[in-house]
């Protein structure tokens, strides 16, 4: 996975950091203005649609944390989004509507699943790792598909959104949007902190070469496992929000197509930049919506874009931005 290792080469780190911060702030501010646009254009739908995009941005961000900084290409990452969604759906069914309880369950379940499957998967490398994570993701998918009591394959629709300490503020699309945006910003800051922390440094060192890390006294496994668990838990937060956005929970959220889509978002946006995952999610989802207006063969347009990006911008869309706006070497 040499792309991963070269993607974050910190040329003139400070300048880069500054431009990242500026870019991140710009993106988040633009996002925050969506409801205003939505209001001005009398188009309430826009807010809700962008909420979904933000949710996937969270999921892509969490994947970028392990894919971009740990070279751990998880092909089962959508499972955690599903865990989050089912934590909401199942608890709702049993009358537990508080979002904090749901979040706690989602995160707990994800941590346990990630710990177990990660411990096994991290024995493998490269493509083997990709495939073994796919296997675990598929197991989770089929498990929920067979859960007749909770709708099985049909999924289940929610009667209401989650409550926050007894209040139903999330019923407002506007509130849900800003809660989601706030979560995204919070998790982005958290992920940035993690990447720059002692832990993040070890993780990135391991990405470059696990053997070298051992040679200076680290045991990479535990750091990779911890990162794998953190990313899973973050993705499950996205799942909790997705269930609230769609007001529907379905095993389709955890299929391998979704995991693949997340990987595509991260690579397209630019691996190992954190912001790249977010940009990738926004671009892929907007493009999908936009292209599908013109033709039911919209997948062809998406495919073309992917190929063009790979051929002409090896660092993803983030690379294009960097070339245009970023500091020159």
């Amino acid at each position, binding site marked *: 996975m040499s792309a991963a290792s070269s993607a974050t080469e910190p040329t003139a780190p400070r300048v880069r950091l500054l431009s990242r911060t500026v870019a991140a702030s710009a993106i988040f501010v633009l996002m925050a203005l969506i409801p205003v646009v939505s209001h001005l254009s009398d188009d309430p739908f826009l807010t809700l649609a962008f909420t979904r995009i933000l949710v996937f941005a969270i999921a892509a961000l969490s994947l970028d944390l392990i894919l971009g900084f740990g070279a751990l290409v998880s092909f089962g990452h959508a499972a955690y989004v599903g865990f989050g969604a089912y934590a909401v759906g199942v608890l709702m069914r049993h009358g537990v509507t508080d979002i904090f309880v749901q979040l706690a369950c989602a995160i707990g379940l994800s941590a346990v699943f990630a710990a177990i499957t990660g411990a096994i998967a991290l024995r493998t490398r490269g493509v083997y790792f990709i495939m073994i994570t796919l296997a675990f993701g598929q197991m989770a998918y089929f498990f929920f598909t067979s859960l007749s009591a909770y709708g099985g394959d049909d999924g289940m629709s929610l009667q209401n959104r989650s409550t926050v300490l007894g209040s139903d503020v999330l019923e407002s699309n506007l509130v849900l949007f800003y809660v989601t945006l706030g979560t995204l910003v919070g998790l982005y800051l958290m992920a940035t902190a993690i990447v720059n922390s002692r832990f993040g440094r*070890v993780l990135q060192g391991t990405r470059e070469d696990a053997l070298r890390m051992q040679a*200076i006294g*680290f045991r990479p496994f535990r750091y990779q496992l911890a990162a794998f668990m953190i990313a899973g838990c973050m993705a499950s937060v996205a799942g909790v929000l997705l269930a609230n956005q769609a007001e529907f929970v379905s095993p389709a959220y955890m299929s391998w197509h979704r995991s693949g889509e997340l990987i595509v978002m991260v690579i397209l946006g630019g691996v190992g930049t954190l912001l790249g995952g977010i940009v990738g999610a926004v671009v892929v989802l907007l493009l999908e919506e936009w292209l599908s207006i013109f033709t039911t063969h919209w997948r062809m347009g998406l495919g073309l874009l992917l190929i063009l990006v790979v051929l002409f911008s090896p660092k993803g869309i983030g690379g294009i931005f960097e070339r245009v706006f970023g500091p020159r070497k």
Partner: protein
Amino acid sequence: MSARLEIRDLQKRFGALAVTDGISLDIAPGELHAVIGPNGAGKTTLVSQLSGQLRPDAGQVVYDGQDITHLDMAGRVRRGMARSFQITTILHGFTVLQNVALAVQARSGSSFRFFGRADAEAGLNDAAMVFLRQVGLADRAQDIARNLSHGEHRQLEFAIALATAPRLLLLDEPFAGTGREEAAQLLDLMQQIKGTQTILLVEHDMNAVFALADRVSVLVYGQIIATGTPDEIRANAEVRGAYLGEEETTASGAAGC
């Protein structure tokens, strides 16, 4: 005298081939002990077993009186055994300073710290700078490791090895592939370090070995055929026959295993 490192009847076979065939060796604290041998003698295999990268089939590795035969590489490093060169410890995407600071970090405090910029930790950086100064790389601290010259990479390797606070340095062919000028630089550096550290030097380059070593062991076909001071080894007929005589004909490069 209690040895820093005792190797007791170490054995390793790859299929029918005995690559390490009953090696026993003691290394005293403060000593620079060199192991030489022709290509295919099993030098790298021996170092790999000492560093924990390979498991021996039989025998023991005792370090400071403790049996560490079954300890993994990271565990050995944490006890102060640093391996360098054939396994390069440099992370090319990191800056020079980050490389060394990471090694400092490995032995100072938990790395399960998720917040706080590691780059801004004065404790790590200051300690790292000490080692960079020692090897003469202080002025390149902020450069990306990838952009260093070949010789500077070797200096950085040393800095990283020293930063792990070693009590025993396993230097695995540091002179392999160096030009004359670089070799001279490296020799200088090792002269400096010598005496402050216990060093096991596995090397192909005769000049360096005879200039540096306190004692030399000669490895041929997985066995140590002689151990002694450089002068003794030079005078040893068996060694001459098995090894020194063919020195000119063996190419440097891929080491045995």
